[in-house]
Protein backbone atom coordinates (compact mmCIF):
# COMPACT_ATOMS: atom_id res chain seq x y z
CA UNK A 1 0.00 0.00 0.00
CA UNK A 2 2.69 2.42 1.13
CA UNK A 3 4.95 1.22 -1.62
CA UNK A 4 2.39 1.72 -4.37
CA UNK A 5 1.70 5.21 -3.06
CA UNK A 6 5.39 6.10 -3.25
CA UNK A 7 5.41 4.72 -6.73
CA UNK A 8 2.52 6.98 -7.71
CA UNK A 9 4.20 10.06 -6.22
CA UNK A 10 7.45 9.32 -8.00
CA UNK A 11 5.69 8.74 -11.29
CA UNK A 12 3.69 11.94 -10.97
CA UNK A 13 6.71 14.05 -10.02
CA UNK A 14 8.81 12.71 -12.86
CA UNK A 15 6.08 13.20 -15.42
CA UNK A 16 5.62 16.78 -14.20
CA UNK A 17 9.33 17.42 -14.64
CA UNK A 18 9.20 15.93 -18.13
CA UNK A 19 6.13 17.97 -19.02
CA UNK A 20 7.79 21.02 -17.52
CA UNK A 21 10.69 20.93 -19.96
CA UNK A 22 8.24 20.47 -22.79
CA UNK A 23 6.30 23.44 -21.43
CA UNK A 24 9.40 25.62 -21.36
CA UNK A 25 10.19 24.71 -24.95
CA UNK A 26 6.66 25.63 -25.96
CA UNK A 27 6.82 28.93 -24.11
CA UNK A 28 10.12 29.89 -25.73
CA UNK A 29 8.78 29.03 -29.15
CA UNK A 30 5.56 30.95 -28.63
CA UNK A 31 7.47 33.93 -27.26
CA UNK A 32 9.92 34.10 -30.17
CA UNK A 33 7.13 33.84 -32.71
CA UNK A 34 4.91 36.35 -30.92
CA UNK A 35 7.72 38.89 -30.79
CA UNK A 36 9.14 38.23 -34.24
CA UNK A 37 6.16 37.60 -36.50
CA UNK A 38 4.94 41.24 -36.60
CA UNK A 39 8.33 42.30 -37.99
CA UNK A 40 8.20 39.58 -40.62
CA UNK A 41 4.73 40.77 -41.58
CA UNK A 42 5.79 44.38 -41.82
CA UNK A 43 9.11 43.84 -43.59
CA UNK A 44 7.96 40.94 -45.72
CA UNK A 45 9.46 37.47 -45.50
CA UNK A 46 11.35 37.71 -48.76
CA UNK A 47 12.74 41.17 -48.06
CA UNK A 48 13.82 39.98 -44.65
CA UNK A 49 15.59 36.78 -45.75
CA UNK A 50 16.75 37.96 -49.17
CA UNK A 51 17.61 41.57 -48.31
CA UNK A 52 21.33 42.26 -48.45
CA UNK A 53 21.33 45.41 -46.31
CA UNK A 54 20.89 45.66 -42.58
CA UNK A 55 20.56 49.31 -41.51
CA UNK A 56 18.37 49.51 -38.41
CA UNK A 57 18.58 53.31 -38.25
CA UNK A 58 16.90 53.52 -41.67
CA UNK A 59 14.55 50.65 -40.87
CA UNK A 60 16.17 48.41 -43.48
CA UNK A 61 16.28 44.83 -42.26
CA UNK A 62 17.79 42.24 -44.57
CA UNK A 63 19.50 39.25 -42.97
CA UNK A 64 20.89 37.68 -46.12
CA UNK A 65 24.52 38.57 -45.20
CA UNK A 66 24.08 36.98 -41.77
CA UNK A 67 22.45 33.90 -43.26
CA UNK A 68 25.36 33.48 -45.65
CA UNK A 69 27.73 34.26 -42.79
CA UNK A 70 26.29 31.58 -40.55
CA UNK A 71 26.55 28.99 -43.31
CA UNK A 72 30.09 29.95 -44.23
CA UNK A 73 31.36 29.95 -40.67
CA UNK A 74 29.60 26.68 -39.84
CA UNK A 75 30.83 25.07 -43.04
CA UNK A 76 34.36 26.22 -42.34
CA UNK A 77 34.20 24.96 -38.76
CA UNK A 78 33.00 21.55 -39.97
CA UNK A 79 35.71 21.41 -42.63
CA UNK A 80 38.25 21.80 -39.85
CA UNK A 81 36.53 20.04 -36.96
CA UNK A 82 35.20 16.89 -38.64
CA UNK A 83 38.45 15.54 -40.10
CA UNK A 84 40.40 16.49 -36.96
CA UNK A 85 37.80 15.09 -34.60
CA UNK A 86 37.17 11.91 -36.54
CA UNK A 87 40.88 11.29 -37.02
CA UNK A 88 41.38 11.75 -33.32
CA UNK A 89 38.52 9.39 -32.47
CA UNK A 90 39.84 6.72 -34.86
CA UNK A 91 43.29 6.98 -33.33
CA UNK A 92 41.96 6.72 -29.78
CA UNK A 93 39.62 3.85 -30.56
CA UNK A 94 41.69 1.75 -32.96
CA UNK A 95 45.37 2.55 -32.62
CA UNK A 96 46.33 3.91 -29.21
CA UNK A 97 46.71 1.79 -26.10
CA UNK A 98 43.74 1.91 -23.71
CA UNK A 99 45.72 3.97 -21.20
CA UNK A 100 46.65 6.63 -23.74
CA UNK A 101 43.08 6.65 -25.01
CA UNK A 102 41.67 7.28 -21.53
CA UNK A 103 44.11 10.11 -20.88
CA UNK A 104 43.69 11.83 -24.25
CA UNK A 105 39.94 11.45 -24.26
CA UNK A 106 39.54 13.03 -20.85
CA UNK A 107 41.81 15.88 -21.92
CA UNK A 108 39.78 16.47 -25.05
CA UNK A 109 36.62 16.42 -23.00
CA UNK A 110 38.16 19.10 -20.80
CA UNK A 111 38.14 21.31 -23.91
CA UNK A 112 34.35 21.23 -23.70
CA UNK A 113 34.52 22.79 -20.27
CA UNK A 114 36.48 25.84 -21.40
CA UNK A 115 34.11 28.83 -21.57
CA UNK A 116 33.50 30.06 -25.09
CA UNK A 117 34.74 33.54 -24.18
CA UNK A 118 38.15 32.00 -23.51
CA UNK A 119 38.14 30.43 -26.95
CA UNK A 120 37.20 33.83 -28.31
CA UNK A 121 40.00 35.47 -26.39
CA UNK A 122 42.58 33.03 -27.73
CA UNK A 123 41.16 33.55 -31.20
CA UNK A 124 41.48 37.29 -30.75
CA UNK A 125 45.05 37.25 -29.50
CA UNK A 126 46.46 34.39 -31.58
CA UNK A 127 44.37 33.47 -34.61
CA UNK A 128 43.31 36.93 -35.75
CA UNK A 129 46.84 38.48 -35.72
CA UNK A 130 48.19 35.33 -37.37
CA UNK A 131 45.73 35.60 -40.25
CA UNK A 132 46.30 39.34 -40.56
CA UNK A 133 50.05 38.83 -40.78
CA UNK A 134 50.26 35.79 -43.03
CA UNK A 135 47.10 35.88 -45.16
CA UNK A 136 46.24 39.59 -45.17
CA UNK A 137 42.97 41.37 -44.56
CA UNK A 138 41.80 42.57 -41.17
CA UNK A 139 42.27 39.17 -39.55
CA UNK A 140 38.72 39.31 -38.16
CA UNK A 141 37.25 36.95 -40.72
CA UNK A 142 35.35 33.87 -41.79
CA UNK A 143 38.61 31.96 -41.53
CA UNK A 144 39.31 33.06 -37.95
CA UNK A 145 35.76 32.16 -36.89
CA UNK A 146 36.00 28.79 -38.63
CA UNK A 147 39.25 27.92 -36.90
CA UNK A 148 38.00 28.89 -33.45
CA UNK A 149 34.67 27.09 -33.95
CA UNK A 150 36.43 24.11 -35.49
CA UNK A 151 38.35 23.70 -32.24
CA UNK A 152 35.25 24.25 -30.14
CA UNK A 153 33.34 21.42 -31.83
CA UNK A 154 36.24 18.99 -31.38
CA UNK A 155 35.09 17.58 -28.02
CA UNK A 156 31.63 16.79 -29.38
CA UNK A 157 33.04 15.32 -32.55
CA UNK A 158 35.67 13.24 -30.77
CA UNK A 159 33.62 11.84 -27.93
CA UNK A 160 30.46 11.03 -29.88
CA UNK A 161 32.32 9.38 -32.75
CA UNK A 162 34.67 7.62 -30.32
CA UNK A 163 31.65 6.08 -28.62
CA UNK A 164 30.26 5.08 -32.01
CA UNK A 165 33.55 3.39 -32.91
CA UNK A 166 33.77 1.58 -29.56
CA UNK A 167 30.23 0.31 -30.12
CA UNK A 168 31.44 -1.62 -33.19
CA UNK A 169 31.65 -5.26 -32.05
CA UNK A 170 35.15 -6.56 -31.32
CA UNK A 171 34.35 -9.56 -33.52
CA UNK A 172 34.44 -7.28 -36.59
CA UNK A 173 38.06 -6.46 -35.79
CA UNK A 174 38.88 -10.15 -35.32
CA UNK A 175 37.06 -11.00 -38.53
CA UNK A 176 39.06 -8.49 -40.51
CA UNK A 177 42.28 -9.59 -38.84
CA UNK A 178 41.49 -13.17 -39.87
CA UNK A 179 41.44 -12.18 -43.54
CA UNK A 180 44.84 -10.54 -43.13
CA UNK A 181 43.70 -6.93 -42.89
CA UNK A 182 45.89 -4.31 -41.27
CA UNK A 183 44.24 -2.09 -38.67
CA UNK A 184 43.87 0.71 -41.15
CA UNK A 185 42.26 -1.59 -43.72
CA UNK A 186 39.82 -2.82 -41.08
CA UNK A 187 39.00 0.77 -40.13
CA UNK A 188 38.46 1.83 -43.72
CA UNK A 189 36.52 -1.18 -44.97
CA UNK A 190 34.44 -2.21 -41.99
CA UNK A 191 34.73 -0.19 -38.81
CA UNK A 192 34.01 3.30 -40.20
CA UNK A 193 31.09 2.04 -42.32
CA UNK A 194 29.69 0.21 -39.28
CA UNK A 195 29.92 3.31 -37.12
CA UNK A 196 28.52 5.52 -39.87
CA UNK A 197 25.27 6.54 -38.20
CA UNK A 198 27.01 7.45 -34.94
CA UNK A 199 29.61 9.49 -36.78
CA UNK A 200 26.87 11.26 -38.67
CA UNK A 201 25.16 12.04 -35.37
CA UNK A 202 28.44 13.47 -34.10
CA UNK A 203 28.78 15.67 -37.17
CA UNK A 204 25.24 16.95 -36.83
CA UNK A 205 25.58 17.68 -33.13
CA UNK A 206 28.76 19.55 -33.99
CA UNK A 207 26.91 21.49 -36.69
CA UNK A 208 24.27 22.54 -34.19
CA UNK A 209 26.95 23.65 -31.78
CA UNK A 210 28.79 25.61 -34.47
CA UNK A 211 25.64 27.30 -35.69
CA UNK A 212 24.51 28.24 -32.20
CA UNK A 213 27.82 29.49 -30.82
CA UNK A 214 27.82 33.25 -30.34
CA UNK A 215 30.38 34.75 -28.01
CA UNK A 216 33.57 33.29 -29.48
CA UNK A 217 32.40 34.18 -32.96
CA UNK A 218 31.57 37.77 -32.09
CA UNK A 219 35.11 38.22 -30.78
CA UNK A 220 36.88 37.09 -33.96
CA UNK A 221 34.43 37.56 -36.84
CA UNK A 222 34.58 41.31 -37.34
CA UNK A 223 30.77 41.41 -37.48
CA UNK A 224 30.38 43.57 -40.62
CA UNK A 225 26.91 43.32 -42.10
CA UNK A 226 28.05 42.67 -45.65
CA UNK A 227 28.14 39.38 -47.52
CA UNK A 228 31.76 38.20 -47.23
CA UNK A 229 33.47 37.85 -50.56
CA UNK A 230 36.35 35.75 -49.34
CA UNK A 231 37.39 33.72 -46.31
CA UNK A 232 39.46 36.69 -45.17
CA UNK A 233 36.51 39.09 -45.03
CA UNK A 234 34.72 39.98 -41.80
CA UNK A 235 31.43 38.25 -41.26
CA UNK A 236 28.39 38.43 -39.00
CA UNK A 237 26.36 35.37 -38.09
CA UNK A 238 22.68 35.18 -37.17
CA UNK A 239 23.41 34.59 -33.52
CA UNK A 240 25.95 37.43 -33.39
CA UNK A 241 23.39 39.73 -34.93
CA UNK A 242 20.96 39.08 -32.11
CA UNK A 243 23.55 39.29 -29.36
CA UNK A 244 25.19 42.47 -30.66
CA UNK A 245 22.05 44.55 -31.04
CA UNK A 246 19.49 43.18 -28.62
CA UNK A 247 20.78 45.41 -25.81
CA UNK A 248 19.81 48.73 -27.35
CA UNK A 249 17.09 47.79 -29.83
CA UNK A 250 13.47 48.85 -29.60
CA UNK A 251 10.31 48.65 -31.67
CA UNK A 252 10.59 47.07 -35.08
CA UNK A 253 14.36 46.72 -34.70
CA UNK A 254 13.81 44.53 -31.66
CA UNK A 255 11.12 42.57 -33.47
CA UNK A 256 13.46 42.05 -36.42
CA UNK A 257 16.00 40.52 -34.05
CA UNK A 258 13.38 38.10 -32.80
CA UNK A 259 12.55 37.32 -36.41
CA UNK A 260 16.23 36.48 -36.85
CA UNK A 261 15.65 34.06 -33.98
CA UNK A 262 12.75 32.49 -35.90
CA UNK A 263 15.00 31.88 -38.90
CA UNK A 264 17.62 30.32 -36.63
CA UNK A 265 14.91 28.19 -35.04
CA UNK A 266 13.89 26.83 -38.44
CA UNK A 267 17.47 26.15 -39.46
CA UNK A 268 18.16 24.14 -36.32
CA UNK A 269 14.86 22.25 -36.62
CA UNK A 270 15.58 21.29 -40.22
CA UNK A 271 19.06 20.21 -39.16
CA UNK A 272 17.60 17.99 -36.45
CA UNK A 273 15.10 16.45 -38.85
CA UNK A 274 17.91 15.65 -41.27
CA UNK A 275 19.89 14.17 -38.39
CA UNK A 276 17.06 11.90 -37.34
CA UNK A 277 16.36 10.78 -40.88
CA UNK A 278 20.04 10.12 -41.50
CA UNK A 279 20.57 8.18 -38.30
CA UNK A 280 17.47 6.09 -38.88
CA UNK A 281 18.45 5.47 -42.51
CA UNK A 282 21.96 4.59 -41.42
CA UNK A 283 21.01 2.07 -38.75
CA UNK A 284 18.30 0.48 -40.90
CA UNK A 285 20.86 -1.08 -43.18
Amino acid sequence: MKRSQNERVAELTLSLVALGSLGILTLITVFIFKEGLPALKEIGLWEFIGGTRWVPSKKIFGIFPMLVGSFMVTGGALAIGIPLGLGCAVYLSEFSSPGVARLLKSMIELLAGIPSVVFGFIGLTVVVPFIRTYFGGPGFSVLASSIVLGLMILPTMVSVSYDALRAVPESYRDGMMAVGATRWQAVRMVILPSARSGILAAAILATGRAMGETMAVIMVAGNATAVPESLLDPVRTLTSNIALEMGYSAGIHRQALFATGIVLFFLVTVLNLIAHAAVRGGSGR
Partner: protein
Amino acid sequence: MEENRSAILIPETAKIRVKDFNLYYGGFHALKDITVSFEKNAITAVIGPSGCGKSTFLRSINRMNDTIKGVSTRGQILLDGKDIYGPGVDVTWLRSRVGMVFQRPVVFPLSVFDNVACALRVQGITDRTLLSDIVEESLKAVDLWDELKGNPKQPALSLSLGNQQKLCIARAISTRPDVILLDEPCSALDPIATLRIEELMWTLREKYTIVIVTHNMQQAARASDYTIFMLDGQLVEWGPTRDIFTNPKDRRTEGYITGKLA
Protein backbone atom coordinates in the same frame (compact mmCIF):
# COMPACT_ATOMS: atom_id res chain seq x y z
CA MET B 1 66.33 -35.51 -29.79
CA GLU B 2 62.94 -33.78 -29.64
CA GLU B 3 63.15 -32.95 -33.34
CA ASN B 4 63.83 -36.56 -34.20
CA ARG B 5 60.93 -37.82 -32.18
CA SER B 6 58.63 -35.40 -33.99
CA ALA B 7 59.89 -36.49 -37.38
CA ILE B 8 59.00 -40.06 -36.61
CA LEU B 9 55.58 -39.20 -35.34
CA ILE B 10 54.30 -37.06 -38.17
CA PRO B 11 54.33 -37.75 -41.89
CA GLU B 12 56.45 -35.40 -44.00
CA THR B 13 53.68 -35.15 -46.59
CA ALA B 14 51.11 -33.60 -44.27
CA LYS B 15 49.79 -30.15 -45.20
CA ILE B 16 50.46 -28.74 -41.77
CA ARG B 17 53.05 -30.12 -39.40
CA VAL B 18 53.16 -28.90 -35.84
CA LYS B 19 56.40 -29.63 -34.02
CA ASP B 20 56.76 -29.19 -30.26
CA PHE B 21 54.64 -26.09 -30.35
CA ASN B 22 54.32 -24.12 -27.12
CA LEU B 23 52.38 -20.97 -26.40
CA TYR B 24 52.52 -18.79 -23.30
CA TYR B 25 50.15 -16.07 -22.19
CA GLY B 26 52.70 -14.21 -20.14
CA GLY B 27 53.58 -16.75 -17.46
CA PHE B 28 50.71 -19.10 -18.28
CA HIS B 29 51.75 -22.11 -20.33
CA ALA B 30 48.69 -22.52 -22.55
CA LEU B 31 49.94 -25.00 -25.15
CA LYS B 32 52.50 -27.61 -24.17
CA ASP B 33 54.71 -29.38 -26.71
CA ILE B 34 52.00 -29.96 -29.27
CA THR B 35 53.17 -32.25 -32.04
CA VAL B 36 50.60 -33.19 -34.62
CA SER B 37 49.84 -32.98 -38.31
CA PHE B 38 46.91 -32.09 -40.50
CA GLU B 39 46.34 -34.00 -43.71
CA LYS B 40 45.31 -32.48 -46.98
CA ASN B 41 41.72 -33.09 -48.06
CA ALA B 42 40.74 -34.26 -44.62
CA ILE B 43 38.76 -32.85 -41.76
CA THR B 44 40.48 -32.86 -38.40
CA ALA B 45 38.37 -32.23 -35.33
CA VAL B 46 39.93 -30.79 -32.19
CA ILE B 47 37.98 -31.73 -29.08
CA GLY B 48 38.48 -31.22 -25.37
CA PRO B 49 36.88 -29.50 -22.40
CA SER B 50 36.59 -25.70 -22.16
CA GLY B 51 39.89 -24.02 -21.45
CA CYS B 52 41.97 -26.95 -22.71
CA GLY B 53 43.61 -24.69 -25.30
CA LYS B 54 41.91 -25.98 -28.41
CA SER B 55 40.81 -22.54 -29.62
CA THR B 56 44.21 -21.10 -28.76
CA PHE B 57 45.77 -23.89 -30.80
CA LEU B 58 43.47 -23.20 -33.74
CA ARG B 59 44.26 -19.49 -33.58
CA SER B 60 47.97 -20.31 -33.60
CA ILE B 61 47.65 -21.78 -37.08
CA ASN B 62 46.84 -18.38 -38.62
CA ARG B 63 48.68 -16.40 -35.96
CA MET B 64 45.57 -14.73 -34.57
CA ASN B 65 47.22 -14.76 -31.15
CA ASP B 66 49.95 -12.41 -32.34
CA THR B 67 48.26 -9.22 -31.21
CA ILE B 68 47.38 -10.48 -27.73
CA LYS B 69 49.67 -8.86 -25.17
CA GLY B 70 52.30 -11.09 -23.62
CA VAL B 71 51.92 -14.02 -25.99
CA SER B 72 55.08 -15.86 -26.90
CA THR B 73 55.60 -19.12 -28.77
CA ARG B 74 58.21 -21.81 -29.09
CA GLY B 75 58.38 -24.63 -31.61
CA GLN B 76 57.23 -24.74 -35.20
CA ILE B 77 54.08 -24.82 -37.28
CA LEU B 78 54.97 -25.71 -40.84
CA LEU B 79 52.62 -24.98 -43.71
CA ASP B 80 53.87 -26.89 -46.77
CA GLY B 81 57.20 -27.10 -45.01
CA LYS B 82 57.45 -23.37 -44.29
CA ASP B 83 57.53 -22.27 -40.66
CA ILE B 84 54.74 -19.73 -40.28
CA TYR B 85 56.45 -18.32 -37.18
CA GLY B 86 59.73 -18.02 -39.06
CA PRO B 87 61.35 -14.68 -39.89
CA GLY B 88 59.94 -12.73 -42.82
CA VAL B 89 56.53 -14.40 -42.86
CA ASP B 90 53.87 -11.94 -44.01
CA VAL B 91 50.75 -12.51 -41.90
CA THR B 92 48.54 -11.06 -44.62
CA TRP B 93 49.88 -13.73 -46.94
CA LEU B 94 49.52 -16.40 -44.25
CA ARG B 95 45.89 -15.48 -43.62
CA SER B 96 45.12 -15.65 -47.31
CA ARG B 97 46.42 -19.25 -47.21
CA VAL B 98 44.65 -20.09 -43.94
CA GLY B 99 41.04 -18.91 -43.74
CA MET B 100 39.12 -18.75 -40.48
CA VAL B 101 35.48 -19.02 -39.45
CA PHE B 102 34.36 -18.01 -35.97
CA GLN B 103 31.86 -19.29 -33.45
CA ARG B 104 29.31 -16.57 -34.11
CA PRO B 105 29.09 -15.54 -37.74
CA VAL B 106 31.19 -12.40 -38.19
CA VAL B 107 29.00 -10.59 -40.68
CA PHE B 108 29.69 -6.93 -41.30
CA PRO B 109 26.78 -4.50 -41.74
CA LEU B 110 27.58 -4.22 -45.44
CA SER B 111 26.22 -5.94 -48.52
CA VAL B 112 26.77 -9.67 -49.01
CA PHE B 113 29.11 -8.75 -51.84
CA ASP B 114 31.27 -6.46 -49.72
CA ASN B 115 31.37 -9.03 -46.94
CA VAL B 116 33.21 -11.39 -49.25
CA ALA B 117 35.04 -8.77 -51.29
CA CYS B 118 36.72 -7.20 -48.25
CA ALA B 119 38.91 -10.31 -47.90
CA LEU B 120 39.99 -9.91 -51.52
CA ARG B 121 40.53 -6.16 -51.29
CA VAL B 122 42.84 -6.77 -48.35
CA GLN B 123 44.90 -8.92 -50.69
CA GLY B 124 45.09 -6.01 -53.11
CA ILE B 125 42.50 -7.18 -55.64
CA THR B 126 40.58 -4.15 -56.88
CA ASP B 127 39.52 -5.10 -60.40
CA ARG B 128 35.71 -5.02 -60.42
CA THR B 129 35.07 -7.89 -62.79
CA LEU B 130 37.62 -10.07 -61.06
CA LEU B 131 36.08 -9.22 -57.67
CA SER B 132 32.56 -10.03 -58.76
CA ASP B 133 33.69 -13.25 -60.45
CA ILE B 134 35.42 -14.49 -57.33
CA VAL B 135 32.59 -13.39 -55.05
CA GLU B 136 30.10 -15.25 -57.22
CA GLU B 137 32.28 -18.33 -57.33
CA SER B 138 32.74 -18.28 -53.54
CA LEU B 139 29.03 -17.84 -52.87
CA LYS B 140 28.26 -20.70 -55.24
CA ALA B 141 30.77 -22.91 -53.47
CA VAL B 142 28.86 -22.53 -50.21
CA ASP B 143 25.40 -22.94 -51.82
CA LEU B 144 24.42 -19.38 -51.08
CA TRP B 145 24.27 -17.96 -54.59
CA ASP B 146 20.90 -19.49 -55.48
CA GLU B 147 19.37 -18.44 -52.19
CA LEU B 148 20.44 -14.87 -52.86
CA LYS B 149 18.72 -15.14 -56.24
CA GLY B 150 21.75 -13.64 -57.88
CA ASN B 151 21.57 -10.44 -55.85
CA PRO B 152 24.72 -10.16 -53.76
CA LYS B 153 24.06 -6.48 -53.07
CA GLN B 154 21.48 -7.19 -50.38
CA PRO B 155 22.39 -6.43 -46.77
CA ALA B 156 24.22 -9.37 -45.22
CA LEU B 157 22.61 -8.92 -41.81
CA SER B 158 19.22 -9.79 -43.27
CA LEU B 159 20.38 -13.38 -43.88
CA SER B 160 19.49 -16.18 -41.48
CA LEU B 161 22.17 -17.13 -38.96
CA GLY B 162 22.97 -20.33 -40.86
CA ASN B 163 23.35 -18.43 -44.10
CA GLN B 164 25.46 -15.83 -42.34
CA GLN B 165 27.85 -18.59 -41.32
CA LYS B 166 27.89 -19.84 -44.92
CA LEU B 167 28.73 -16.30 -45.97
CA CYS B 168 31.65 -16.34 -43.54
CA ILE B 169 32.85 -19.59 -45.08
CA ALA B 170 32.52 -18.00 -48.51
CA ARG B 171 34.71 -15.14 -47.28
CA ALA B 172 37.24 -17.59 -45.86
CA ILE B 173 37.54 -19.51 -49.14
CA SER B 174 37.47 -16.43 -51.41
CA THR B 175 41.25 -16.08 -51.27
CA ARG B 176 41.55 -19.73 -52.40
CA PRO B 177 43.33 -20.80 -49.26
CA ASP B 178 44.89 -24.17 -48.50
CA VAL B 179 43.47 -24.47 -45.02
CA ILE B 180 40.19 -23.55 -43.39
CA LEU B 181 40.01 -23.20 -39.61
CA LEU B 182 36.57 -23.42 -38.03
CA ASP B 183 36.17 -22.42 -34.39
CA GLU B 184 32.96 -24.08 -33.18
CA PRO B 185 31.20 -22.90 -36.33
CA CYS B 186 27.85 -24.45 -35.46
CA SER B 187 27.45 -23.63 -31.80
CA ALA B 188 25.19 -20.66 -32.56
CA LEU B 189 23.14 -22.56 -35.13
CA ASP B 190 20.04 -24.73 -34.99
CA PRO B 191 20.34 -28.47 -35.83
CA ILE B 192 19.25 -28.09 -39.45
CA ALA B 193 21.67 -25.27 -40.16
CA THR B 194 24.35 -27.30 -38.37
CA LEU B 195 23.72 -30.22 -40.69
CA ARG B 196 23.96 -27.93 -43.72
CA ILE B 197 27.33 -26.62 -42.56
CA GLU B 198 28.56 -30.18 -41.99
CA GLU B 199 27.46 -31.18 -45.48
CA LEU B 200 29.27 -28.14 -46.80
CA MET B 201 32.40 -29.15 -44.94
CA TRP B 202 32.34 -32.54 -46.65
CA THR B 203 32.16 -30.84 -50.03
CA LEU B 204 34.92 -28.38 -49.20
CA ARG B 205 37.10 -31.21 -47.94
CA GLU B 206 37.82 -32.13 -51.55
CA LYS B 207 39.75 -28.90 -51.99
CA TYR B 208 40.95 -27.88 -48.57
CA THR B 209 42.59 -28.98 -45.37
CA ILE B 210 39.96 -28.43 -42.71
CA VAL B 211 40.45 -28.06 -38.97
CA ILE B 212 37.39 -27.73 -36.78
CA VAL B 213 37.22 -27.07 -33.07
CA THR B 214 34.03 -28.43 -31.61
CA HIS B 215 32.31 -29.01 -28.30
CA ASN B 216 29.87 -31.32 -29.96
CA MET B 217 31.02 -34.90 -29.67
CA GLN B 218 28.58 -36.25 -32.25
CA GLN B 219 29.74 -33.62 -34.68
CA ALA B 220 33.35 -34.67 -34.25
CA ALA B 221 32.36 -38.32 -34.62
CA ARG B 222 30.27 -37.92 -37.76
CA ALA B 223 32.00 -35.04 -39.54
CA SER B 224 35.71 -35.62 -39.29
CA ASP B 225 38.45 -37.91 -40.57
CA TYR B 226 40.86 -37.34 -37.73
CA THR B 227 40.34 -36.30 -34.15
CA ILE B 228 42.68 -34.60 -31.72
CA PHE B 229 41.88 -34.72 -28.03
CA MET B 230 43.39 -31.99 -25.88
CA LEU B 231 43.47 -31.52 -22.12
CA ASP B 232 45.15 -28.79 -20.08
CA GLY B 233 47.12 -27.48 -23.04
CA GLN B 234 48.44 -30.92 -23.93
CA LEU B 235 47.65 -33.16 -26.81
CA VAL B 236 46.45 -36.38 -25.23
CA GLU B 237 45.63 -38.44 -28.27
CA TRP B 238 45.14 -38.10 -31.98
CA GLY B 239 44.32 -40.46 -34.80
CA PRO B 240 41.57 -41.49 -37.19
CA THR B 241 38.22 -40.43 -35.77
CA ARG B 242 36.87 -43.96 -35.74
CA ASP B 243 39.76 -45.18 -33.61
CA ILE B 244 39.47 -42.32 -31.16
CA PHE B 245 35.77 -42.86 -30.67
CA THR B 246 35.65 -46.66 -30.68
CA ASN B 247 39.00 -47.60 -29.28
CA PRO B 248 40.67 -44.75 -27.41
CA LYS B 249 44.12 -45.62 -26.11
CA ASP B 250 44.21 -43.09 -23.30
CA ARG B 251 41.86 -43.37 -20.33
CA ARG B 252 41.38 -39.59 -20.29
CA THR B 253 40.17 -39.67 -23.89
CA GLU B 254 37.77 -42.45 -23.06
CA GLY B 255 36.53 -40.51 -20.07
CA TYR B 256 35.90 -37.41 -22.12
CA ILE B 257 34.10 -39.02 -25.03
CA THR B 258 31.90 -41.05 -22.73
CA GLY B 259 31.05 -37.92 -20.78
CA LYS B 260 32.81 -38.73 -17.53
CA LEU B 261 35.12 -35.75 -17.90
CA ALA B 262 33.39 -32.60 -18.91
